[in-house]
Structure formats: C-alpha cells, structure tokens
C-alpha cells in the first residue's frame, strides 16, 4: 500500500515540507530576529500536494519553477507552510519565502527521483526514503552542531540590554565597527585574559612534551620488546584510563593542600601529563606495531644500540603518529577543567578554562562569559581544522583494526 507512487510521493513531500519549513523559520528567526514560524498542518497539506504533483506531472523544469512560484506566493499571502508575524520586515518575508520555495522545489524532485505514479519496487521506495533521511540528517546535524556555536559567537558581540529585549535577534549592527568587540577588549584589559591564554598555552605545550618523553619509550617497549607480562601490561594501560578523574582529584587535592603544591604552576604541570600518558602510550604502541620491524633489525645489525634505533629509525618513521598524539594531548590539556578548577585559586595562575569559570557570576555580563568561551574555543578549533587529517587519525589510531 505504501509502496505506491501516489502514496509515497505525497507522504515524503509532506514530511519534507515540514522539515524545510521548520529549518527555514529557525534560520530566518536566528538571523533576523523577526517572527517566523512553521505551520505544521499547512506544511503537511501543501507538501503532500506538491509531492503528488511531482509524481503525477514528472520532474520537469516547468514543475520545479511552478512549485517555487506557488510556495513563494502562498507564504507571502499568509496561508503557506511558513507563517510570518506582523513585525517581520518585508525584505525578510520575501527572502524567507523565496528560500523556502527554492529549497523545497529543487530538493523534493531529487528525493522523489525514481518515484512514479504506479507501484514501486523495494529499491525505488527505499531509495526515496533514504534520500529523504539523508537530507534530514544533513540539516539536523548541521543545525545541532552549529546553533550552540552560533549563539556563543553572536552573544559575545552583543550587550545585555539587546539580548534581554529580543533573545532571538542575533543580527549585528555592523555600523558599530570595533565597538562590537568591546567585551573581548575588556577581557584582555581588565580580566587578565592575555595571561590566561599564555598560561593555557604554556601548560599545554609542556604537557605534550612531557607526555611524549614518557610515552615514546614505554610504547616502544610494549610494542617491540619481548618481556614477561607484556600482554597484561598493554591491556592494563587502558584500564588506567578508566579511572574517573574526580576519584583521583580528591586525594590529589588533599596531597597538594598539605604540600603547598596547590595553586602552583608546577603542580598542574606534574598532574596533567599523567592523565595523558596512558592514552598516548596506547596510541603510539598501536602505531609502532604497524611499522616494519625489518628496518629496525637492519639498524641493529649495523651496530646501532636499541636507543639509537628508536631515535634514528623509529621516530622519524612515526612522525605522523607523533603529530596526531601531540595534537590529541594538546587538546586534552587545553580543555581540561576539573583539575584546574580544584587546584588553582590565584587569578594570576589561572588557565583559560579556570578563567572562564571565574566569569560565571551574576555581576559579570553574559557577553563576557561567551567572549571568554570564544577565546578558549578558537585556538583549538583553528589547530583542529588545520590538522584535521592528523586529528581524525589520532582519535581512531590503535583502537580500530583494519
């Protein structure tokens, strides 16, 4: 029953119209602050008609243009799948309706590509459903990922009054020029964020180097050398990673309070690497195992010692893995919050994450909190996007065979 073109077409058309009208309304609301809202019943109704039309009349250019014109006209006359409030500007209304019309018309013809008005076989039907789900998936994931970051950036550029007045209005007034960046300027001049940025960077880089200094020899031993307990050791490394940080943080806090290491740079630098060594060791040993041992044996034959083999042969061969591991460790150290929060009280020694936590009070306006979040997010994102290849490899290294 459902695998009939004249049933499948309207159903998918209706659902797709609903998805798109919600998407366009949210996007228009967030970018202009004007009241746009989808109408569930009208969306389903018009979407079903359009889906039926595509199936019945075919996917010609004329049908596409017809759908664009009709949907745009319906929205503008107020009985379309998307409704606009009186406060909406006329430019935004026209723009929104045209976007909805075009997006729907050109995508619904792709979704219903193989759907004809007669009975459908399984392939044709499931293909259409999969194309619908794919489209929905792209919109869904892009929206859920982007919206929080969009809110973060836009909030940091506005002031408290504007935000309270219309929480949906994220449009920014470009005529304000550099005044838009005022909260950033205040963070750097009044809240010491320059120091926090430097502290975070310094601690993270130091953590990377210390971690590598410990993990490289350890990983090599586990991967290459034969000794009793090797198998048990390589397995128990991961077990250490399973111990929750909060359980360790409590005794560490006590020990640091009693020895005066709390509130000190070196205390943090001592603790961070230990949280990253197990995972770095695990990632590296997976990579070392994959290297051909013949090259190293040739080096041994030619009279190099084991340590020289590691330094001159293994390390140069594993530079990509070292980059991935460094990036991953840097990310962990940069994002670390719990230990910094518990162990640092002195504002001159704060890391960025600790600094942001100190902004979370009712006296400090929210755009400062968000500006701080942006400052912490941008460097790690830039690093990540620049080296994404290494990052994705690093994250999956050693854990997935084949």
């Amino acid at each position, binding site marked *: 029953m459902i695998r009939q073109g004249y049933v499948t077409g309207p159903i998918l058309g209706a659902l797709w119209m609903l998805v798109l009208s919600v998407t366009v309304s*949210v996007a228009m609301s967030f970018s202009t602050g004007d009241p746009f809202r989808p109408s569930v019943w009208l969306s389903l109704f018009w979407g079903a008609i359009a889906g039926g039309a595509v199936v019945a009349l075919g996917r010609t250019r004329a049908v596409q243009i017809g759908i664009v014109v009709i949907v745009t006209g319906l929205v503008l006359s107020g009985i379309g799948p998307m409704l606009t409030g009186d406060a909406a500007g006329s430019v935004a209304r026209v723009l929104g309706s045209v976007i909805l019309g075009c997006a729907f018309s050109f995508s619904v013809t792709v979704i219903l590509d193989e759907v004809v008005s007669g009975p459908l076989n399984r392939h044709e039907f499931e293909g259409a459903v999969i194309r619908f789900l794919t489209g929905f*998936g792209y919109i869904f994931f*892009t929206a859920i990922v982007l919206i929080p970051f969009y809110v973060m950036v836009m909030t940091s550029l506005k002031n408290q009054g504007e935000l309270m007045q219309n929480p*949906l209005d994220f449009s920014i007034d470009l005529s304000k020029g550099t005044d838009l960046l005022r909260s950033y300027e205040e963070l750097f001049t009044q809240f010491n964020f320059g120091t926090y940025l430097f502290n975070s960077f310094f601690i993270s880089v130091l953590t990377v180097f210390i971690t590598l200094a410990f993990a490289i020899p350890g990983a090599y031993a586990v991967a290459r*050398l034969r*000794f009793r307990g090797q198998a048990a050791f390589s397995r128990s490394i991961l077990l250490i990673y*399973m111990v929750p940080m909060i359980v360790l943080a409590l005794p560490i806090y006590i020990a640091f309070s009693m020895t005066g290491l709390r509130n000190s740079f070196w205390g943090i630098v001592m603790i961070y690497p230990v949280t990253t060594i197990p995972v770095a060791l695990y990632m590296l040993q997976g990579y070392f195992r994959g290297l051909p041992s013949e090259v190293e044996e040739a080096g041994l034959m030619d009279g190099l010692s084991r340590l020289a083999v590691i330094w001159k042969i293994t390390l140069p061969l594993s530079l990509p893995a070292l980059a991935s591991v460094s990036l991953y460790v840097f990310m962990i150290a940069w994002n670390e919050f719990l230990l910094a929060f518990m162990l640092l009280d002195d504002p001159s020694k704060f890391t960025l994450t600790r600094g942001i936590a100190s902004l979370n009070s009712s006296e400090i306006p929210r755009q400062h909190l968000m500006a701080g979040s942006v400052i912490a997010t941008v460097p790690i994102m830039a690093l990540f996007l620049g080296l994404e290849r290494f990052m994705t490899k690093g994250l*999956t290294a050693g*854990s997935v065979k084949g």
Partner: protein
Amino acid sequence: MAESHPPIGTGPLAKREARLAWGLLFPTIAAVALVVLLPLLAIFWISFKPVGLADLRAPEVVLREDIRGDDEAVGDAATIRYRLRNSSQDQPITGVTFSDVIPMGLAVQDLDPRCTLENRDLTCDLGDWEPGNREILTIPVIVEQPYLDNALRPQDSPATTTGVAPNVLTNTTFTLDNFSRIFSGEEFVEVLWVTLFYTVFGTIGALLVGLFAALLLNKAFRGQGILRGLYLFPYVAPVIAVAFAWLILFDPFSGSANALLIQMGVTPTAINFFGERPLALIMVTVFEIWRYFPLSFLFILARMQSIDTDMYEAADMDGASPFQQFWYLSVPQLLGILSVLFLLRFIWTFNKFDDIFLLTGGNAGTRTLTVSVYEQAFAISNIGAGAAVAVVIFGCLLAFSIFFLKYISREEGL
C-alpha cells in the same frame, strides 16, 4: 652419540631485552603509580576516616607578639607580651615550645618559670595544650640606651613555634560513619538511579546518533571532509565553553530556545530546561549525547570505510534492497566496533563529572555518583564521605572492568 636440545629457559639476550623493556617502562610506571595508584589507595584510607575539609589544615600554635608600656626613654619599664593560642577547637597539641630573640637593650627583669634565657635567646616550653587553649606570657623589661639607638623592636624578630598535633589523616582512628552516612537516606537510591539513567541513555544515544551520522558521511562527495570536521566540533571544543553556550541558549528568561518555542507556539510559557525535575536530567543526557556522538561517529565511520565494497556489489546483483544491505551486511560487520564502543563509552559516561557539574551543579535531580563525590567533599566539607562515594564508584568500575576484560578478549581490536 649426544642428542642435541634446543636451548631451554631465557638466554642472556632475552634477559637483556627484558631489562631494557622494564627500563624504558619505568618512568611511566613510576609516574602512574605516584599519581594513580597512590591516590586510589589514599581514597580507601580516607573513606574510613572522620575527616572534614577543615582538618586538612593541621592545628598549629598561633602567636602574636607586642610591646606594652613606654619604651621611649632610658629607664622606662615595659612588658613584652606573647599571646598564644591553639588554632584548633577540637585537636590538642603536644610539646608546645617557642623561641624568640629579645632585642638589644631590653633588660629582662623577671622570667616565667617555663622559660629560659641564654644571652638574648628566649626559649619557653609550654607543655601539652588542650583544644582551644589560650595563653599570655608577659616579660617585664627595662629600656636601656642601645634599644633606643637600635631600630630593632620585639615584633621585628619573628618567634618560632613548635608543637606536634595529631593528624586525622595519619592517626589510627577509623570509622564506618562515612559509609553509613552515604548508604542511609533515600538520596543514595536516587543518585544510583540518576547515574544509571544518564549512563545508559547517554551511551546508547551517542552510539545511535553517531551511527546515523556515519551512515550519512559514508560516501564520497564534495564537502565530505568539511562536514566531517564540522561534526567533530562538539567533541573538540572545551567543555566549559559549550556547556555555558547551552546554558545561555536554554536560559528560562532570555534564552533563544525558549523565545523560539514560544514564537512557534509549542509552549505558552518559558521552560526552565535545566531547573525542572525530570527535564533537567533529560537535558544533561541530551548534552552528553550531543557532545560525544562525534567520537562514536568517527570510530564507526573508520570501520565502515574498511568494509569491502565487493560485498555490496554482489548483494546489489542479487537484488538486495538498501535496507536489507544495511541490516544483513553492514550491521553484522559493525557489531564488533559497536560493542567495543558501547563498553568504553559506558564506562566513560559513568565517570563523567564536568558536564553535569557545569550545567546544573547536580541540582534538579541530576546528581550522579561523580557529582556526589564533589558535593560531599567540598559543598558539605566532608572529605571522608566524598571518599566513601569514590570507593563505591571504584567498586562499580572494578565490576565493569572484569566484565570488560573477559568480554573484550573475545572481541576484535583493543
């Protein structure tokens, strides 16, 4: 004729290799022992101790020193006064002594019997002190000319004090109060239930959402790399930044999400997403799914891309529909990585602290076991009870790990 045997036991070369291996591993083992194993043992020790946050500072002798009376002319009579007290109201201090230097030109007239004076060095032995003990020692002195020539006043030479205070952390008083305190009360059952809900739904949700995302990106098209990078954003960004962004997005008074929902007519009044009882728990679980779906997405995608495409071509020839191909070909191939991911994520979600702490602080029915550790130790200032909760967590993890090791040895990878 002598029979030849292969060598038995470990030869010198093998021994040398093993020695080198342990040498290379030693720094790691030492560091991990110091920062992981030692604290774990400490947690067990502390969980049986009646220790609060205030006990971390050991009781000490607090001393203030001043000079009273005239000290402006030769022959003036003045008194040096030492005020001492035990900083703790409930711990005694034994063997209290202090020593100080009397400045030049002050002639000591009379001395407390507990004190001795050698040249200008004053030493007093005050014996054992009760909790909260206070004492005042006065030493009458006559001012002489060198004192007036000299800028040194009694306060300028700091007095040193000694005293031995029993430390709650190192003595042998043990108690089961911590455990009875956390196990009694309905709260513990609720904490367990919240932890279970959060862990199970957070894990399964992140896996399913990650699987969906991986299916979307498991084909080559332009912009695939960009989307893959984009979908990893929630995992890569600092948790504190995204947690606060969520809080502001879902704020009940000025949050955009509420404004949007009201405008769309979904709800007539603003919803307090992170402040109402069942909703807050659902929201922190959704946050957990949002933040960690990228990880499962990445692993599942990597596994998918290593599946041979021939199989799908063969299935296509045989007329299998896309859903059949997914169900009968992809899912069996992915089961291995899915179960590994499930176990790993299950444990990590169970361990998660920062997310809930930042979003709700454990209020509105979102207190998990890990948040409870912090709550007991720092909010209620009862370190012993916090440690007891940590021991419970550790017990759960041990059970998971045994299961994990048993199960994983049959599984692929890892």
